[in-house]
């Protein structure tokens, strides 16, 4: 067979094949053949895989944000990878869809623009300027590589371009402005009076029959709250702290001594000389030499710095630059500084900034922290490490034993732990250990509540674990009549009061409908009354309930107001008369009001379109989640 190939290679076919190979390599590159194929994604969006790494990265970002937002109060259940993973994947799918749509539209982000954006981000600045070192270290601490960061920036830019065109280029036409102004800035004239509930509180004599009837009719209101009596084992790291022997501490100190050493530090002042534009090299050297000479003649360094130094920042402070531990200044300076004694002035040192004369003002020798200084810190670290290990061993043992045990007593005995009890724990417990959502969820889970099993050993923090079981389940029960009699009596009285005030409100409505003025009814009966002319939808003078109702009601005819009554949050009745409705007019609006409507209309069309764009992408897409 090889013979066949060899002979065929000499034909015209061979030339064509070689040609094709060359063309394909020059177009696709060799990597497409070497590294292509084989997807191992968690989902596929129109054939493009989403890798597990992407999801993990999104989950980590989300976790960091949650922790930054909520601190220690964050419930570990919220940081569950499965929950966050599902959300993250959803977000990634949306993003991928938008990117595919942007690619179809041939949208790209240019390298130059990405560079501008990165250089403009203040997180990467040092002394008011972009610093490549800060850039890489900030990214590294956030867990990104520069390549990944640039890629996601490029995506952000492109997605923003799509949004700017889809939603951001929307508008409000003049006719729409007029139409919306007519409704949004409509004005309504309202009169209203307030009937206070206080005046209609009823002292009713409630009979036993009434109480019994009420009790029978409203059983659902008089049930006890469901609760559980719990048995639990709590494991805290502090219970596993053991004293650390003196010789162990000493040993640890000897091992780690070197890392407790303080760096030697030098404090220096300098005088900076910059060569003037027209200044010759000789004249410049002479100027430096002259200053150097007067210093060795005993001139005051600080004073001379104030007069001569071109470094305006330090000149005012006598040339003081503060401390350096050997890396704050350019290498040339640091070398010269290292060679100086305290009080000595250097020979002229040349750096990029110019020529320096340097005075060493103070030197802090590198010191080793003493054992006594380091002892509390060492002890704490060692103790905590040991205690955590001991705690984790206990937790593992408890997990093994509690899984099959009938209750917690056996495992507790075997492991020398204590079973504690908590009573009256409810589903919306707000205080104490059992207000933790993960514990409530466990206590009221089917497994624990219905089947009577031990819960898992639940991690509240790496230093705090709890296992629990339900000893008694107190189901909701009808409370005995005697314990709720008081409640029922006041409920009956409350109902009577409400009925009485409604009768009064109705009397007011009927009177006003019959032609009596709001004012005269109010004055006659001793109620407060108010008038609000030209109230708009954002009015702040009218009570909220009155304002809302006034704009829901139908418009009045010329001389008959529309009358209605509403309750406010205190239970007072507000009787309102809608007297007049005036349509809004675009031309009468203040420029700010007009702008507001303009922006609102454009933004509403934009938001709706953006949302429909996104859901359209989803509908058309082929999405597989593995």
């Amino acid at each position, binding site marked *: 067979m090889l013979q066949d190939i060899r*002979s065929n290679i*000499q034909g015209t076919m061979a*030339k*064509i094949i*070689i*040609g*094709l190979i*060359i*063309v394909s*390599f*020059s*177009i696709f590159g060799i990597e497409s053949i070497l590294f292509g194929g084989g997807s191992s994604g968690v989902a596929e969006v129109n054939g493009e895989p989403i890798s597990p790494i992407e999801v993990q990265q999104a989950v980590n970002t989300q976790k960091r944000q949650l922790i930054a937002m909520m601190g220690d109060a964050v419930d570990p259940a919220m940081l569950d990878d499965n929950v966050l993973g599902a959300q993250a994947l959803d977000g990634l799918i949306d993003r991928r869809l938008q990117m595919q749509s942007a690619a179809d*539209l*041939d*949208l*790209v982000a240019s*390298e*130059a*623009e990405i560079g501008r954006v990165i250089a403009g981000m203040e997180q990467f600045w040092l002394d008011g300027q972009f610093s490549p070192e800060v850039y890489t270290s900030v990214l590294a601490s956030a867990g990104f590589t520069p390549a990944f960061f640039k890629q996601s920036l490029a995506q952000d830019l492109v997605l*923003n*371009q799509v949004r*700017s*065109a889809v939603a951001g280029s*929307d*508008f*409000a*036409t*003049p*006719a*729409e402005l007029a*139409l*919306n102004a007519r*409704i*949004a800035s*409509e004005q309504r004239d309202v009169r209203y009076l307030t009937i206070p509930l206080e005046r209609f509180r009823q002292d009713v004599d409630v009979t036993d029959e009434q109480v019994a009837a009420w009790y029978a009719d409203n059983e659902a209101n008089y049930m006890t709250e469901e609760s559980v009596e719990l048995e639990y084992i709590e494991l805290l790291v502090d219970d596993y702290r053991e004293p650390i022997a003196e010789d162990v501490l000493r040993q640890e100190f000897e091992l780690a001594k070197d890392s407790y050493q303080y760096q030697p530090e030098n404090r220096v002042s300098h005088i900076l000389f910059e060569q003037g534009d027209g200044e010759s090299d000789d004249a410049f050297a002479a100027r430096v030499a002259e200053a150097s000479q007067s210093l060795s003649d005993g001139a005051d360094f600080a004073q001379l710095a104030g007069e001569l130094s071109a470094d305006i920042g330090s000149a005012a402070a006598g040339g003081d630059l503060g401390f350096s531990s050997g890396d704050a200044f350019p290498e040339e300076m640091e070398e010269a500084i290292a060679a100086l004694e305290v009080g000595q002035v250097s020979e002229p040192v040349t750096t990029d900034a110019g020529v320096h004369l340097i005075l060493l003002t103070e030197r802090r020798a590198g010191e080793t922290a003493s054992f006594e200084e380091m002892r509390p810190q060492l002890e704490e670290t060692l103790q905590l490490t040991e205690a955590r290990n001991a705690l984790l061993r206990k937790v593992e043992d408890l997990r093994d034993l509690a899984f099959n045990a009938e209750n917690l007593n056996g495992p507790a005995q075997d492991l020398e732990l204590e079973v504690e009890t908590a009573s009256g724990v409810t589903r919306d417990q707000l205080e104490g250990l059992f207000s933790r959502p993960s514990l409530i969820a466990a206590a009221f889970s089917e497994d624990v509540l219905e089947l009577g099993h031990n819960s898992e050993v639940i991690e509240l923090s790496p230093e705090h674990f709890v296992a629990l079981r339900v000893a008694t389940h107190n189901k909701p029960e009808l409370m005995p009549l005697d314990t709720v009699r008081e409640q029922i009596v006041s409920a009956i009285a409350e109902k009577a009061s409400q009925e009485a005030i409604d009768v009064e*409100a*109705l009397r007011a*409505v*009927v009177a006003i*409908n019959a032609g009596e003025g709001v004012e005269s009814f109010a004055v006659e009966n001793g109620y407060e009354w108010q008038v609000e002319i030209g109230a708009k*939808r954002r009015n702040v003078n009218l009570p909220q309930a009155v304002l809302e109702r006034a704009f*829901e*009601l139908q418009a009045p005819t010329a001389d008959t107001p529309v*009358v*209605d*009554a509403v309750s406010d949050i205190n239970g007072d009745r507000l009787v309102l008369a809608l007297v007049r409705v005036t349509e809004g007019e675009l031309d009468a609006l203040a420029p700010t009001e007009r702008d507001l*409507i*303009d922006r*609102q209309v454009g933004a*509403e*069309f934009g*938001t*709706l*379109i953006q*949302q*429909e*764009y996104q*859901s*359209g992408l989803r*509908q058309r897409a082929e999405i597989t989640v593995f």
Partner: protein
Amino acid sequence: MEQYRTEEEQVEALKRWWDENGKATIAAILLALVAGFGWQGWQGFQQEQLATASDSYQRLLQAMSTPETGEPDTAAAREIAGQIKKEYGGSTYAQFAALHLARMAVNDADLATAEAELRWVLAKADAGSDIAQITQLRLARVLASSGDTTQALTLLDAGADGDYAGAYAMARGDVFMMQGDESQARAAYSEARVLAAADATLPPLATLEQKLQSLNPQAPEMTGTTADEG
């Protein structure tokens, strides 16, 4: 099939083959290389064009954004947008730029220019694409504002079953309101509200709610004439 007996014979055969076919082979290789690299070069050129268009579009967005101090620079924005349309007329960026030109024209109540820009986009965009659907909606709204509510409704009805049914319904409500047809407007707005509510994360649309409230006036709950009297 030929058999070569000695090495010399093989070399001889190769030489003969080279004399016969050498030039053709070289030519084929060169041709392939030129085609391959030419294609790459063309692709690179295209990418570069897109990148510069993208840069210009970013400058357009910059000019239209409101800096902390005062107003957006609409004169500059118009100039950049015009340039994008002229130099990168075949790109999506040209269509985006025209959409922004239309928006700026509407803000100045220059409906004729807005209509022209939107029609330009419609001519360029693929029929049925997202951009085409969005542009058609905006064109209808501009036409309605210039008084041609009939043509506006024709355009809106044509796109009512597309991907942007909610926004189309909202616009249809507005056009009916302009015509004074409150019952049709009410139906269209209600449809828009149902479609918008399909996404629970979307905040309520305040002006849509206001218009619906205004179209659904309520009778008083406490009247004193009917059941309340009992």
